């Protein structure tokens, strides 16, 4: 098993923004990279518009599938109005990626790509190899949309390097 350190990430926004898919992508990437990984979300029913939060934890051995208050190393926020609620999960010295939300929205043409751009941003911070991300995308995206998602993922990573 890989490095013992555990990394906690909280994703959040509202239903219909592709948050579950984003955390799914991270989950598969962490799996392919050899980590033990758990993902769990809190949301209401099938309808759109309610709050959604998703937690991913990876590392050596993971017990709780949920990130507790002030435990997230990274916070990936998809909707500005949800930020105050989500912020309670962030560690005191955790990295708040909310600042990338507007930049991410500015560089995409299709709003459906918001989740992949933001995961690209996150990927720039995480110890997961590029090949594991690429394999994860093959599982999570259908062949029809995989190429466009690979492109916006790279754009997201590039936002961090700017």
């Amino acid at each position, binding site marked *: 098993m890989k490095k013992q350190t555990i990394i906690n990430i909280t994703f959040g926004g*509202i*239903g219909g923004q592709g948050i579950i898919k984003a955390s*799914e992508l991270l*989950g*598969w990437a962490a*799996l392919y990279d050899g*980590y*033990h*990984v*758990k*993902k*769990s*979300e*809190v*949301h*209401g*029913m*099938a*309808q*759109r*518009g*309610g*709050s959604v939060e998703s937690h991913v934890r990876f590392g050596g051995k*993971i*017990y*709780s*599938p*949920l*990130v*507790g*208050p002030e*435990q997230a190393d990274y916070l990936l926020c998809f909707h500005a109005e*949800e930020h*105050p*609620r989500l912020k*309670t999960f962030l560690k005191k010295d955790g990295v708040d990626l909310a600042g990338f939300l507007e930049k991410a929205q500015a560089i995409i043409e299709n709003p459906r790509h918001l989740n992949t751009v933001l995961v690209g941003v996150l990927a720039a911070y995480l110890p997961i190899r590029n090949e594991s991300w690429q394999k994860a995308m093959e*599982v999570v995206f259908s062949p029809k949309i995989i190429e466009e998602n690979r492109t916006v993922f790279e754009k997201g990573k590039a936002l961090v390097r700017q």
Partner: protein
Amino acid sequence: MAKKENLTKAFLSGNEALARGAWESGLKVAAAYPGTPSTEILESLALYPELDVQWSVNEKVAFEVTYGAAVGGVRSLFACKHVGLNVAMDPLMTASYAGVSAGFVVVVCDDPGMHSSQNEQDTRWVGPYAKVPILEPSSPSEAKEFVGQAFEISEKFDTPVIIRMTTRISHTKEDVDLGTRTDIAAKPLVKDWEKYVMVPRNARMRHEVVEKRQEKLVKLSEKSRLNKVELKNPSLGFITSGISYMYLKEQFPDASYLKLGMLYPFCDEKIKNFSKKVKKLCVVEELDLFIEEHVKALGIRKAKFKHPSFQLGELGPATIGDLVAGRPKNEKKLPARPPRLCPGCPHWSVFSVLKKLDLFVAGDIGCYTLGSLPPTSALHTCICMGAGVTFNEGVRRAHPEGKIVGVVGDSTFVHSGITGLINAVYNKAKGIVFILDNSTTAMTGGQNHPATGKTIRNEATKALDLPALCKACGVDNVDVIDPAGALKEFEELVKKRLDENTLSVIIAKHPCKLIK
């Protein structure tokens, strides 16, 4: 869902892992009615072409079809949400007496915190009530492992076996090791009337068998590795199960644990021995006091229990520390946005008219239940599946002159509205029953049902004709209308039917926005 070829590990939810485990264990027949958080079990099983799977009309039917298959001689599985088991309790209680030929597993997904449910009932009590064993996994990997053991226990002890899941286990994903499938041939069909015909003479004999089986199951519970003792630091010990175990391990990694994977029947000796080995003993469980009451009955004085406030809702990393310390629950959470009907949802137009006419609306279970939320506030009861039909009748019996109607969804109507409609006709009830036909089971994510004319695998089948069915029940008027395109006509129709002293069905037909 993952592509499964050439993978030794996959990132699976508890529901997907359980399905995978059942498939690996030689499962043949599975059935369910959709219900959050259990829905993905059947959806995952439907991806394995060698399995015979179905969305059934309701849980009672699903139970009977799968239990029949197990009596017939193949491994079978029924899945439901906690309240779904209520609908299937009738066959379960007697299936416990008659037993099985091949393994039969009942998966029940509870919903602590009521993320998408009308109550928070705790299925663990069904163990002692139906006298069947209950297993409870703590993770997706365990769900996969436990289902294989459940089939073995079912066959060895001649009993249905319940696997109790919760939303948190069903919907958590983790990396899960994959295995291969073991095919099992069907057992020959036997005619054993003393075992399978539960007339009093035979049922009396079978009840004796059940009580003897209980004794054997207790022995299994004592020696099974499902109930695992982890002795570390003896100063603090926990008796726990399910997801609670995970939250505890996170915060008390050095403590000692008795982790109950087989929750019923209890392993009394193991519990007593464990309690002797630790200095402080704490029982940690979500919802009801199932383990607590048993530990108390065993006379274990040193055991500490949770504050009563913890009988409500889900546990979690934020609150588990307070629970262990014996403090009341103190959850500081900023309010989350509630779900609402999707923009453009067909139900909006129906509710705008019902609200305008200021009717008392008996509701049912589905997306349309959200019509009760302010500012719409146009739905006034929601108790269980099918009650939109029967409450139109019941509330009218209290107020025969009241402006009362009922609403029910298409899938819900087929699930358990039809019998209520026949009852209304038979007993001369009046009023309007609206079938909000969005051509899917929307609230659980859009599953097929008899009136969509498609099976769980999207294969074409005979479509149930709802207007013809309602006419055949003897309803006075059956109208089909798309209110979204004809709001004025819809309103006129409702007024007209209200003025007549008749029983009417108005089918408001417009597809759910989320149908692909």
